[in-house]
Every structure is written in C-alpha cells, then in structure tokens.
C-alpha cells in the first residue's frame, strides 16, 4: 500500500527527514516513534499527500478518498456543529448514507448527545473524538494517525482501542506516537526516527 525509499524532507534549510525507508502492506500497522521534532508529523503529512518529499520515492497506492488522516488539529470547523462537520466531510468524501454513518460514529464515540453543539464548545477530548469520527467516516483503507490518544480521557482511550482492534486487520495503519507501549499489541512493523 505504501512504499517509501530514502525519503527526505527539508523545510527551508532544516532537514526534517532523511533516508527513511519502509513498506506498509494492506493490513500492516507501522508504528512510528521518536522524540519531539524527529519528523513523525512530517512523515505522516508526506504519506497523506499534504507535503511533497524533497528527495526519495514515496508511493501511496490508494487515492485520496480511501485515505484517512488524523493530525494534530482536529480539522473541524468550530462554528459548525458536530453533525454539520461530519455532513460536510461526508459529502466531500461521497459517503453513502452519510447521515446514518455520522450518527453511528458519533454514538460509538459517545458524542451523540453533543451532536447539535458547536464544535467550538467541545473540550479537547471531545474534539479528538470528533476528529476520529471524521477520520473513520468514509471507511478508509489507509489510516494515518498522529498521536491519536492525545487529549483523550480513559473513556476515550477505551473507545479508540476498540476501534483500532476492529479495524487493524482490514486497513493499513501508520501511527505516530511517543507512547508506543499502548500500540505495541497492534504493530506489525516499527520505525524509529532520530
């Protein structure tokens, strides 16, 4: 699904990534670790297509509609409600039965009661859950998750674990984290960035 050879990414004069090589199969789970500033976020953004590598080869063999990206920002509009946000993304991603799917996801992540509340009124944890709903809405076959547990309370962590466990065999994952212990159980490969 994803093939990377000698990836390099430079911003201005700073080199963020160098000589990164890995492969992720259709049911693979790549765990990306490293300290802050090592380039985990940059790597995920490259895989998502939000940035272009300075050097090296990167081949992501799915098109945008099958890709799910969770970054540091939840990527939702604060002035829109949870449901409106999911409706917008549902349209853009051509999700069939988007109302039903949005509702179902909101419920699975415990946000059903807050569905008509503006995302701006959400706590950090709720925003993260909403972001997860957004990511899973279109049933992506490749999931790129940057620190997916950040901001989640115990309840949220349990919900995310459940989702990951369900999907881990059906989709390819690239997950960046600086707490790899939680995700060790799923990982089929590891990449440590300096």
């Amino acid at each position, binding site marked *: 699904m994803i093939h990377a050879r000698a990836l390099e990414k430079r911003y201005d004069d700073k080199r963020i990534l160098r000589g990164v090589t890995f492969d992720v199969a259709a049911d693979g789970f790549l765990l990306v670790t490293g300290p802050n500033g090592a380039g985990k976020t940059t790597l995920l953004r490259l895989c*998502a*297509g*939000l*940035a*272009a590598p300075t050097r090296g080869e990167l081949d992501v063999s799915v*098109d*945008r*509609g099958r*890709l799910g*990206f969770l*970054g540091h*920002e*939840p*990527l*939702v*509009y*604060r*002035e*829109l409600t949870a449901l*409106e946000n999911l409706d*917008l*993304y549902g*349209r*853009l*991603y*051509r999700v069939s039965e988007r109302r039903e799917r949005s509702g179902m996801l909101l419920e699975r992540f415990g946000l059903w009661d807050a569905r008509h509340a*503006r995302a701006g009124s959400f706590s950090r944890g709720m925003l993260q859950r909403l972001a997860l709903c*957004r990511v899973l809405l279109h049933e992506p076959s490749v999931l790129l998750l940057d620190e997916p547990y950040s901001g989640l309370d115990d309840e949220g962590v349990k919900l995310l674990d459940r989702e990951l466990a369900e999907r881990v065999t059906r989709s390819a994952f690239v997950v960046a984290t600086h707490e790899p212990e939680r995700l060790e159980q799923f990982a089929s490969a590891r990449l440590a960035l300096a």
Partner: protein
Amino acid sequence: MTYFSDVGALARKDLLLELRARDTLPAMLLFVVSTLVVFHFVLPSESSDLAATGLLWVALLFTALLGLSRSFAAEREQGVIDGLVLAPSDRSAIWLGKALSILAFLGLAEVIALPAFALFFRPISAALVGGVVLADLGIAAVGTLLAAMATASRARELLLPLLFLPLAIPIVVGGVGASVSGEPGRYLGLLGLYDALFAIICWASFEYVVTE
C-alpha cells in the same frame, strides 16, 4: 455533477459560518457606508459628480478587500484547509465554493452601498449596476485565489492588497468606464473578458495554490 454538489456544500458551509460568526458581513457594510461618508468630505465643491462615481469604485474595491482578507480565516486558524485538500473532491471546488460565498457577501454589501451612494451623491445608471455585477465576478474569482495565496505567508494582511491591486486595475477601469462613459458597452465587454480569462486561470491553477 458531484463537482457542483461539492461546490454547493462548500459554499453553503461558508455562508453558514458567516451566519454563525457574523463578523465579516457587518464589517463590510459598515465600512462601505463609512467610506462613502468620508468621500463626501473629500470632494471639494467644484468636483464633478463623476469624481464621486470614481470614488464609489474605490469604496467597493476596498470593501471587497476587507471581506477577502477574512475569507480563509476559519480554514487558516484551525488548519481546516488540510481537511478540504485531503478530500477526494477537486481542489478547484474549494476555490469556486469560496468565491461564490464572497460574491454573495459583495452583493449584499452593494445592496446597501449603491442606494446609499444614490442618496448621498448622484443617481446610478443601469450600466453602473451592470458594471458592478461583472466587476464582482472578477473580484470574487481573483480575490479568492489571492486570499488563499496570502494565507500561506506570514505577512498575509499586508500581502493580499499588494497582490490584488494591480490585478484590480482593469476591473476598476471597466467599472468606472461603464458608469461614466457614453458607451458603456466597451467597458462591460472589458469586464466580461477579464472575468472569463481570469476565472479560467483561477480555476485551473487553484490546485497548485493549496498543494505542494
């Protein structure tokens, strides 16, 4: 057809955002009326009525800049532009949806501004209104793309007017010409040409403005 449904969804989103936040449109309305009032004090007694018409176009242009500078604010502040760019929809739909919403704001501002102008200065002609409509199309098309460009830089509030004003010169010429000259047709034609040419360029190149 999904393209237009995408555009519709995005434009609806922008209008909804403005309805909730209510910051850009009231500012534009107040700005344009205030500017017209300022112009009253700026024109000495022997100035022609036509000078006032020229100033109307200045007011419209700067009101548009005000609206445009806010146009990508939500996407920028929350990084949501990434979310839109990642979607499988055509990137140019982002441009078109946003441009349509800007067009709506401009239109609403002008619904107030033009009668105010007629009240304060001189009656307006059908050719002037036609000029305004065509000019709005050009301003929305080019302005939206440039606003997206400007958000990428640190100096975004400064950059947008600098990028936009040289490109706005043909629009102003067309608009003022349509308003004051004896043969408005030529000027409306200029505006039409500008709109068609630049809309195509914007549509084709927006992809490159939001991706690396």
